[in-house]
């Protein structure tokens, strides 16, 4: 079962895990990305493309399913305004054995940082607003899955 979602609503990690794990799987790996409150950050805004963002996540999910033997995959990205501590992204990957689950989880988080149309904008307590710059290290991490 593949579940992909782009949503402005808060991600309910517990409910998503229950849904993902309904069948019980041999091995499940998870990644939860949260908003850090660095430097007096008051809001993180995630901009997306109405069609291409979800399509991009779907493409990545299917690429992972083609590459590893997966029993279930959940890939949910929040968009819109968020506060420090909020969950931005949830990746759950399950497989009969740990190697596929762990590798698929890492592949998905690495590639969604470079392949999916999402942009972060930070607002700070002093009123400063800044778009987050892409990091060269993210490109390197994403690219190694092509080798």
């Amino acid at each position, binding site marked *: 079962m593949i579940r992909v979602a782009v949503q402005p609503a808060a991600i309910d990690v517990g409910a998503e895990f229950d849904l993902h794990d309904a069948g019980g799987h041999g091995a499940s790996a998870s990644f939860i*990305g949260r908003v850090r409150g660095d430097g007096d950050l008051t809001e993180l805004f*995630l*901009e997306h*493309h109405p*069609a*291409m963002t979800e*399509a991009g996540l779907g493409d990545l999910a299917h690429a992972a399913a083609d590459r590893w033997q997966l029993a279930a995959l959940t890939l949910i*990205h929040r968009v819109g305004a968020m506060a420090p501590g909020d969950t*931005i*992204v949830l990746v759950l990957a399950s497989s009969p054995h740990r190697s596929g689950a762990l590798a698929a989880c890492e592949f998905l*988080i690495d590639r*969604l*940082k*470079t*392949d*999916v*149309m*999402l*942009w*972060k*904008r930070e607002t700070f307590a002093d009123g400063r607003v800044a*778009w*987050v*710059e*892409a990091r060269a290290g*993210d490109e390197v991490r994403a690219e190694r899955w092509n080798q």
Partner: protein
Amino acid sequence: MALNLAYFAWVRDRMGVADEVVELPADIADLTALLTWLAGRDERGALAFAEPQRIRAAIDGVMMGPGAPLADAREVALFPPVTGG
């Protein structure tokens, strides 16, 4: 040729609009030429597209490299490198 342009993140901020329809001169054949044309068209274009190496693009929903041809394109999305995750 009429072409829909859509802008995202700081590209949209600098252009001042989320999308627009432009009448493209006949000699603007690929993405590289489009960025050069937009940068030279007005002040906001110069602000947004002065550094074309910082711009990524999708043609009709598919991510494309700088030399991609515009023939048959209906919508071009222009945006900075993505920063999700």
